[in-house]
């Protein structure tokens, strides 16, 4: 069964450093998402991406964040200068079509720890 994959599973970085989180969405899916979950809190939407551009972003997704689909398979989230409060699980998700009833499938997540 196709699945969303994410690397690395755990990333430890120093405050102020740049990190890139990688995702391989399900092949032939068209919509891509990043969410995050700070420990003990809700899963929160960060950004959605379609047709090689951001289609929607939350207020969390400020200038420190960027997304890219550098080739036909990868989807990346970059945090330019990490802060302590960026420590969280980051989940990538993908969806196949624009049908309202289509489901988002999530990857296993990357645990980001900012020291």
């Amino acid at each position, binding site marked *: 069964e196709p699945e969303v994959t994410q690397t690395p599973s755990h990333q430890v970085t120093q405050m102020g450093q740049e990190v890139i989180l990688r995702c391989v969405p399900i092949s032939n899916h068209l*919509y891509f*998402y990043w969410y995050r979950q700070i420990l003990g809190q809700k899963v929160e939407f960060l950004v*959605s991406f*379609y047709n090689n551009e951001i289609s*929607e972003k939350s207020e969390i997704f400020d200038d420190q964040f960027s997304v890219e689909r550098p080739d036909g398979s990868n989807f990346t989230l970059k945090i330019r200068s990490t802060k302590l409060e960026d420590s969280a699980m980051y*989940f990538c998700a993908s969806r196949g079509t*624009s049908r*309202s009833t289509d489901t988002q499938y*999530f990857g296993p*997540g990357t645990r980001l720890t900012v020291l």
Partner: protein
Amino acid sequence: DQQVKQNSPSLSVQEGRISILNCDYTNSMFDYFLWYKKYPAEGPTFLISISSIKDKNEDGRFTVFLNKSAKHLSLHIVPSQPGDSAVYFCAASAVNTLGSARQLTFGSGTQLTVLP
């Protein structure tokens, strides 16, 4: 801004009995609702969904009920099994003015423990 609420942080049921997980929402623009199951250190796994044009959807042991007038949905698991022990998230989406990105808004989750 709690557009999707799961008021019970935890629920314990005996194996073989019914588990009922509840979810309330406030945004009347939500038209598609999903339940995800999540184990620690893993991503949410899709379980079942329902469109706002329906009031019930069933898939094996899992049934989701939607009461639009009350802005309430529930997930029933019958019979409950120890392997069902996990955190269950309710999520909702709405068409946005920009198109069909359909971001998900999640509840805070309910930890279900099924006792053998």
